[in-house]
């Protein structure tokens, strides 16, 4: 779980790559009971987390998010009048 990003950082990184139109469809508290269903949390780790985390935090140690982003048209998809408009979208070249 140390590799999980803060939601804002997630959004910033997706935007930095070029994605747009982020829609977070769902945010769900991810608690220890959820973690216990997830393969990478061993029983020992779950037990340790139960011991170390305050009870009020055990129902939300992270957030499970479901989201979508879109790859927008590039400048090459909107050439100006003087540009050569022949050819296809370079992103779809074989």
């Amino acid at each position, binding site marked *: *779980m*140390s*590799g*999980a*990003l*803060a*939601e*804002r*950082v*997630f959004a*910033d*990184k*997706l935007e*930095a*790559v*070029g*994605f747009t139109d982020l*829609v977070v*469809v*769902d945010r*769900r508290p*991810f608690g220890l009971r959820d*973690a*216990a*269903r*997830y*393969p*990478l*949390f*061993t*029983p020992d*780790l*779950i037990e340790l987390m139960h011991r170390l985390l305050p009870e009020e935090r055990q129902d*939300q140690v*992270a*957030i*499970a*998010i*479901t*989201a*979508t*982003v*879109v*790859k*927008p*048209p*590039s400048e090459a*998809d909107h050439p100006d009048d003087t540009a050569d408009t022949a050819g296809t*979208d*370079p*992103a*779809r*070249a*074989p």
Partner: protein
Amino acid sequence: MPAEEQDTIAPVDPDELRAEVRSKYREVAVDPTGEHHFHTGRFLAHHLGYDAAWVDPLPDHAVESFAGIANPFALRPLRAGEVVVDVGAGAGFDTFVAASQVGSDGVVIGVDMTPEMLDKSRRNARNMGLDNVEFREGLAESLPVDDGAADVVISNGVFNLCPDKRAVFDEAFRVLRTGGVLQFADIANGNPVPPGAMREIDLWTG
């Protein structure tokens, strides 16, 4: 570490992290119910809100190793004929759900780095007689897919395990066509992870 700098490249050894992730998912592939305390498969899929119409027709072997975080199809079911790439496909559960949505005119390419998961997903696809799915070995940071080949990229619970998120997002962007959609489910933390925790591989995989 400032949030802006969080995890451009993870402060753990990428190969060591991948080996650990492979090891744990190998267990899930080979023995999905064995010594694990966790619930995988059909129970988890229903718990996460997958439509029974997608899950119930799948045979147990195609469902039992499912270990996703949420339901990446929640906002947007796939359309018939779409080309889909499933990043971190595991034993193929989301790939098979996607295949049922895109139909025979579509294609779903599942990418995974764990050989045992690939063996299982390919075997499941053969047993189900699916000819619109294909599984390829590869990393999320270097997808074995052509530029602009995909209408949709899906992923479920994988990004948090990847040491180089920027490379992962770059690759999703590269393989999508213009106007294509990345739809994913993953774990997010409410706050940036303390640098000390980011250096512990055990805390990445758990």
